């Protein structure tokens, strides 16, 4: 049913650390690899070896530049379903194929009853849903529902594929409805935030902001201070480097 559960037992979701994400795309490729054989398989690619390769992916890693006018920083930004508490993608669904699970809050699409009307993708502000042309149904992040409860997998693998794959530990999985959980504490500690909170979808997934960076303007050598110049010899370049490091 597309009516939302009054409350969910757990609020399973992800916490994504924008400070440590390096934009390696391991989460995106791992997601694709698992899910093209998983709950909502296949995740079809169109024209994969041609001039216009595209297809359904459940996780996309953007890169943004944030600048205060002088100093700027690159932020890698993974984007997938946020498993919202009030997801309009679910309530607009005319068939009941989209639903939010009462037990754990995971938002899923039943690939056997979806008619491929695409209205849910219009209702999602986060671009989390991608239509699979060859399958004729909508695809979205399942929070690896076929991994996290899977007794056939070793315990350490019972987490979403993206979390398992992340080499920098930038992705965390857990119950965000439980204030004592590791993910909830991380959010509290690091001032985790919601995407587009004003739209009222109440995302469960949280993002951790990049930590404060060293200000390049403060660490540049002051005018008039003599600095060692690298003129070619290896030892001079070493001294120049030491000078730069000590000047910070």
């Amino acid at each position, binding site marked *: *049913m*597309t*009516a939302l559960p009054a409350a969910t037992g757990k609020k399973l979701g992800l916490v994504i650390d*924008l400070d440590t994400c390096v*934009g390696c795309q391991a989460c*995106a490729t791992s997601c694709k690899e698992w899910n093209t054989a998983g709950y909502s398989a296949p995740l079809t690619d169109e024209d994969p070896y041609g001039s*216009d390769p*595209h*297809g359904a*992916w459940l996780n*996309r*890693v*953007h*890169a*943004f*530049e*944030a*600048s*205060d*006018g002088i100093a*700027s*920083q*690159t*932020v890698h*930004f993974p*984007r997938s379903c946020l498993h919202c508490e009030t997801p*309009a993608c679910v*309530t*607009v*669904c*005319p*068939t009941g194929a989209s639903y939010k699970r009462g037990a754990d809050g995971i938002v899923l699409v039943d690939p056997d009853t*979806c*008619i*491929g*009307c*695409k209205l849910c*993708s*219009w*209702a*999602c*502000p*986060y*671009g989390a849903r*991608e*239509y*699979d*042309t060859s*399958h*004729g*149904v*909508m695809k979205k992040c399942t929070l690896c529902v076929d991994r996290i409860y899977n007794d056939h997998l070793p315990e350490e693998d019972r987490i979403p594929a993206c979390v398992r794959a992340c080499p920098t530990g930038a992705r965390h999985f857990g119950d965000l409805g439980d204030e004592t959980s590791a993910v909830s504490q991380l959010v509290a500690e690091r001032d985790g935030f*919601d*995407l*587009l909170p*004003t*739209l*009222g979808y109440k995302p469960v997934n949280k*993002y951790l*902001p990049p930590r404060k960076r060293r200000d390049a303007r403060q660490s540049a050598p002051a005018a008039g201070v003599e600095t060692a110049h690298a003129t070619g010899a290896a030892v001079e370049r070493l001294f120049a480097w030491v000078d730069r490091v000590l000047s910070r």
Partner: protein
Amino acid sequence: MHPAYSVILFTTASGAGYGLLVWLALASLFDWTPIKSASGFTGFGLALGLITAGLLSSTAHLGRPERAWRAFSQWRTSWLSREGVLAVATYVPAGLMACGWAIAEDNTGIYALSALLTIPLALATVVSTGMIYASLPTIRQWHQPLTVPVYLAFSLASGAVLLTLFLALFDGEEAGGAMLAFVMLAVAALLKWLYWRRIDEEPRDLTAADATGLGRLGTVRVLEQPHTQANYVMREMGYAVARKHALKLRQAVFLFAFAVPALLVLGVFEAAPWIGVAAASLASLSMALGLFVERWLFFAEAQHVVTLYYGAEAA
């Protein structure tokens, strides 16, 4: 938003069909034309034909049209489902009224009751269509108080133009029909003008800084897209019409969906019957063209908030 032709055809054709159905129900209730078999078959053939063609074409954009029947189940939450349920429900009294008019040549008793029931059901179906779009907070240009009134007004205006043609063909009160069409066209044009003024003036105050939550670091711009080719989200949600084209197309809407049909329907006054029929036919064709442009623009001018992640300046 990418304009899906099947959806444009559906909303315009079935909108005109429901509009005509409302006016036919009123014509039946108030004897605007003799209740005869020929007029019944023509009028309801046109109205129900437009509605049915529209509904069938709307299934063309589905990935799994064979499962379309499932869309009747979620009327508690989904405006799309409500639209489907109401569209089918409207056939019952409309079909009964059509049988009374075209076969029994009777518009009293149960047929009058079915005419009375057809009006709210047809209007509710059009309202549901509008609400599918108006209920989406992700698209500022659709999430507007005027979206539903514009849908209703264009449905009733295009239906009234068809009614004028119908009344001119079957010896009815075509002068009254023409006045009705003229007023409805003016109302639709006025509402659409107000709608366009509103979406032009309303500030687009969401930026990539809001979408990413990175505004705390400064201004945010896209450095690198997550993929080399456009994906589904960009193809479906990223479609936008150039501003200068949009202005020309808006003028075309006022010309073809208001000025031309409004002048032509007045041709039924004091003219030979065949001139009236020809004028009303031309008015209908012009209306169809204008409506198509209006509906295409409704999609092409809609900017989805997700485009902020892909480099849109504001939404």
